[in-house]
């Protein structure tokens, strides 16, 4: 990447972080999150619209199709900020649907989605902890996040080497909901009667899912980063045995180890985003290299976020095990995001398959 392009990329990332603060501040209170959780639809449609107005939902959609045309570096920065703020609005699933609609050239539903007027969810998954898209016409589609707030579902159905995308309205759909630990829900859809809005290739489908996996990794990075910041505050202020508990070496060493994991996660996520953005063209990086980098980042972020949030609870002691302490909200979010778009184990297997070890 040339120096100018690099500067432009850095500037876009800075701007996106600044704008995120306006809608979803990192250190903001968690009253909004608590008010929305365990209720339908689990997020605030007005905030979703604001996200659309900011250009976030279509961040990765080319400008000529009404998107912002920005890279994965910017998308990951945004996802990280929303993760740190625990924003329940389904940015990553929404952005996935936008990518697919853009690739299929389905301009009407794309416009409604990226403007934040409606939520469209890609109903691709047929098995728990999977990353492949079988595209079986009638098979139930699983684990649709915040499905209760969707206007329509985008159901990929296998057609030749690629997929026909069928848009099915949520109204009248056979949809069952199960609540999730973070206060949202997973929907199970029995597809019926969708209308084809276009087609995508298998490569486009996989690239879109990989971006969703990387976006989720970035969100996990934000979750762990903020949970760690809150824990450091607690270590500095909580007094036992006449001094701040953060002065005890055992806890200092634990905190230092967590910092290492967060730094590794950040490096891995940002390196994967840079590979996606290399050359300014998202299709430019060789597929195997991209896949390996994203798989590594998602595996690291999932493991590290669970470790950091678990330890955050432990370091908060009894108060950490209460629902009224905000730190628990971070662990619940990590529990849900860690296995969305593939678990750490699944992504390690993808990494091994995509990047065979080179003999020294």
């Amino acid at each position: 990447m040339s120096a100018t392009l690099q500067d432009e990329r850095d500037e876009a990332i800075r701007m996106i972080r600044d704008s995120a603060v306006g809608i979803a501040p990192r250190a903001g209170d968690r009253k909004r999150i608590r008010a929305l959780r365990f209720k339908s639809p689990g997020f605030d449609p007005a905030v979703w619209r604001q996200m659309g107005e900011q250009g976030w939902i279509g961040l990765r959609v080319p400008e000529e199709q009404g998107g912002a045309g920005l890279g994965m570096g910017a998308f990951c920065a945004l996802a990280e900020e929303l993760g740190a703020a625990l924003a329940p609005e389904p940015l990553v699933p929404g952005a996935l649907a936008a990518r697919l609609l853009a690739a299929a050239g389905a301009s009407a539903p794309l416009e409604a989605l990226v403007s934040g007027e409606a939520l469209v969810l890609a109903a691709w998954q047929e098995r728990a902890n999977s990353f492949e898209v079988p595209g079986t016409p009638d098979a139930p589609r699983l684990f649709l996040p915040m499905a209760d707030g969707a206007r329509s579902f985008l159901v990929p159905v296998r057609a030749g080497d690629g997929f026909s995308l069928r848009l099915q309205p949520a109204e009248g759909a056979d949809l069952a909901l199960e609540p999730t630990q973070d206060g949202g829900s997973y929907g199970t859809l029995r597809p019926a009667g969708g209308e084809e809005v276009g087609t995508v290739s298998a490569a486009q489908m996989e690239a879109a899912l990989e971006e969703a996996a990387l976006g989720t990794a970035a969100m996990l990075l934000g979750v762990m980063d903020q949970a760690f910041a809150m824990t450091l505050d607690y270590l500095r202020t909580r007094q036992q045995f006449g001094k701040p508990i953060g002065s005890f070496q055992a806890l200092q060493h634990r905190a230092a180890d967590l910092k290492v994991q967060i730094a590794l996660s950040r490096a891995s996520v940002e390196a994967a985003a840079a590979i996606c953005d290399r050359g300014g063209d998202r299709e430019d990086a060789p597929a195997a290299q991209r896949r390996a980098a994203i798989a590594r980042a998602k595996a690291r972020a999932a493991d590290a976020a669970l470790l950091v949030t678990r330890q955050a609870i432990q370091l908060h002691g009894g108060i950490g095990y209460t629902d009224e302490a905000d730190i628990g909200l971070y662990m619940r979010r990590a529990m849900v995001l860690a296995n969305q778009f593939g678990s750490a184990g699944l992504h390690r297997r993808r990494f091994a398959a995509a990047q065979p070890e080179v003999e020294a």
Partner: protein
Amino acid sequence: MTDYNAMTDDEFRAEVRRFVESEYPTHLRNPPNRLHWDEGEEWFRIVQKKGWVAPGWPRELGGMGLDASKQIILIEEYERHGVARLPDHGVIMLGPLLIRFGTEEQRARFLPRILAGEDIWCQGYSEPGAGSDLASLRTEAVLDGDHYVVNGQKIWTTLATDANWIFCLVRTDKAAKKQEGISFLLIDMNTPGVTVRPIINLALHDEFCEVFFDNVRVPKENLVGEPNKGWSMAKALLGFERIFLGSPRQSAYALSRLKTLAERMGVFDEPEFQDRYTKLRCDLEDHKALYETFVAVLRRGESLGADVSMLKLHQSDLFQRITELMLEIGGENAGLLKPMEGNRDLHPAGQFIEARPTTIYGGSSEIQRGILAKAVLELPG
């Protein structure tokens, strides 16, 4: 009355097994949360009818008079069957304390009511500012005529909403060294000035409470033992808690759930899973062996040393590692708020959350490691 100690261990084990298999209510097996009194009372009444409310108390006081070895067998068989723990602080904590340190009047007044299920006790030790550093507790009791006047706050009081009595550690001498100014006081929770507030925990269950004391007048005959000796009395009874918390029960149950989950996710036969599962199995078997060595100490009629900290430390760590693997292999199911479709006992997220506080309560793992380093390894500092 049956002398259970006259039975062989095998005979007694068979007797307990028959009892729980024929009489324990099926719908109460392996509950996901601690049961409230009204949820578990039907089981209490069955146990009461059998005369088995207080296994460790002497027979002349209405207990079963079991020796340590038989008590362990009883616990093992209950755990094997998934028998729920009732609000049992009266039986397990207060009873033994009154039997050892109480007056004749206190025993006559309180013990029969515990056996009858008329008094439900809770334990008021921890405070917001006194968790790991329990001896820094500040709830104070000031003598005023025939009464102590109590002011302060307790926290993490298990099932206080169910209890009508609370036994508390209170500060009665502010000038003394912190462990030496603490007394053991019994407080009727219906006394004016006592307020209970439930705390919702991460499992979204109201198991813990805060208890507030605002000028609560407590008759001075409710003080147990000598004034300012409460700390050593309470500490003398902690050994049993630590072996109880070190029991392999939670890990054994979680491991069986891990296996079911792995089968359902289709990964049970994968070599990678088998390797990790087998390691956990070996950890559990080794833990049982370690647990047995401590049980043997109790069987010999000896008391447990500080090294019992190892049991709780390892059990809680193992329980957490098993549930962490459940989360890893459970896919999106591991994010669900409720048990998985079609199996009430399969709830990876619930079990993961349930395992979190085991390294915090009953002396956190950090405190247990400190005890091991100082009292067992005799390291300096």
